[in-house]
């Protein structure tokens, strides 16, 4: 899932300066599951903003709604009906959600209430860890199911650096050394030959380095006539 966390309240208040009435829009998908932008978080943030701006003497009326998915047109299109009455829309979606709203409602100020952090999973309740950077060229089959691109701070492809100690990464004592686990898994899975192979320089053109990425599937794309 996409993992996000809320921006500091003060930063959001600064963004909202000058607004009288704002619509906070949550998203019912990834950010609900990671407790950052679901219905409840929308409620908490909105109540906090109402109280805080009231105490400041510049009360902002913050109203709330949550859609199933901010990143799909069909779910956000119905918001248009009463959008006119709001000075701005505060999105509690990920960066994709914010941009989908901005694309859907040009001319309306769409403000991000979250910082989108990474693609990851909950390793325990209340703890999320990054697992994928979307490099566009997956190598998990040779690295024993552990991603060196997203989990090794130096993005090494040929084994652990000299800072691995007791299975812990030197960059962050709270993180396990990805390569320590990769070595263990590779040995268990009989991938010793892969371990000893000098893995060639990665082609990053499939990653963000190659420019803005886009996938076109002609097999499911709507014919021009239907789009119209």
């Amino acid at each position, binding site marked *: 899932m996409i993992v996000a966390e809320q921006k500091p309240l003060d930063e959001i208040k600064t963004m909202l300066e000058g607004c009288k009435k704002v619509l906070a829009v949550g998203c019912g998908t990834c950010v609900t599951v990671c407790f950052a932008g679901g219905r409840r978080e929308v*409620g*908490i943030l909105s109540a906090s903003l109402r*109280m805080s701006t*009231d*105490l400041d003497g510049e009360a902002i009326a913050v109203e*709330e709604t949550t859609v199933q998915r901010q990143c799909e047109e069909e779910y956000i299109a119905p918001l248009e009906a009463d959008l006119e009455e709001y000075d701005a829309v505060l999105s509690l979606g990920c960066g994709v959600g914010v941009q989908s709203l901005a694309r859907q409602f040009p001319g309306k100020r769409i403000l991000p209430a979250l910082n989108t952090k990474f693609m990851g999973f909950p390793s325990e309740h209340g703890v999320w860890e990054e697992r994928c950077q979307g490099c566009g060229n997956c190598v998990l089959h040779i690295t024993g199911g552990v991603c060196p691109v997203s989990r090794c701070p130096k993005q090494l492809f040929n084994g652990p650096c000299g800072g691995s100690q007791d299975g812990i990464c030197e960059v962050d004592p709270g993180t396990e050394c990805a390569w320590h686990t990769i070595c263990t898994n590779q040995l268990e899975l009989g991938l010793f030959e892969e371990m000893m192979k000098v893995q060639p320089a990665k082609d990053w053109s499939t990653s963000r380095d190659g420019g803005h990425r886009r996938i076109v599937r002609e097999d499911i794309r709507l014919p021009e006539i239907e789009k119209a």
Partner: protein
Amino acid sequence: MTTEAKEFEPEVVAFCCRHCAYSAADLAGGGRMTYPCAIKIVEMPCTGRANVLEILHAMENGADGVAVAGCLPGTCHYIKGNTHARQRVDHVSELLTKIGLEEMRVRMIHISAAMGAQFVAEVTNFVETIKDLGPSPLSRDTGNARVAPGSEHAGSKP
């Protein structure tokens, strides 16, 4: 000023667990012990049911303080409900500071069903704390409450 302020009568919401604090309050009542009438008790099956949003809405709707009263540590009927409640109360404390209210306006209390007197002592102490703090700037007393009685909460979109 001619209108000397009458003594501040706070409004304090207490989310009480049915298995402990709520029964303790009952016991206190049955024993003819008195506790401040400021306390408005909301019964819950477990304090694990109390969530951040409800506590915030109580504050937003004009409460001067919110107490969450659950079982003694380690004795929750649902194993960890009171532990979660404490985490959430701590979180609300932090939120209140960021919002601009005093963090002491929320408090977690641990009590057993047999502790009628202690319940009285705990809530009395909390009400005293709130009295010392004075009315919440958002309370009805200050005329700032923004929510009409009866409405669900200020942000609910029709």
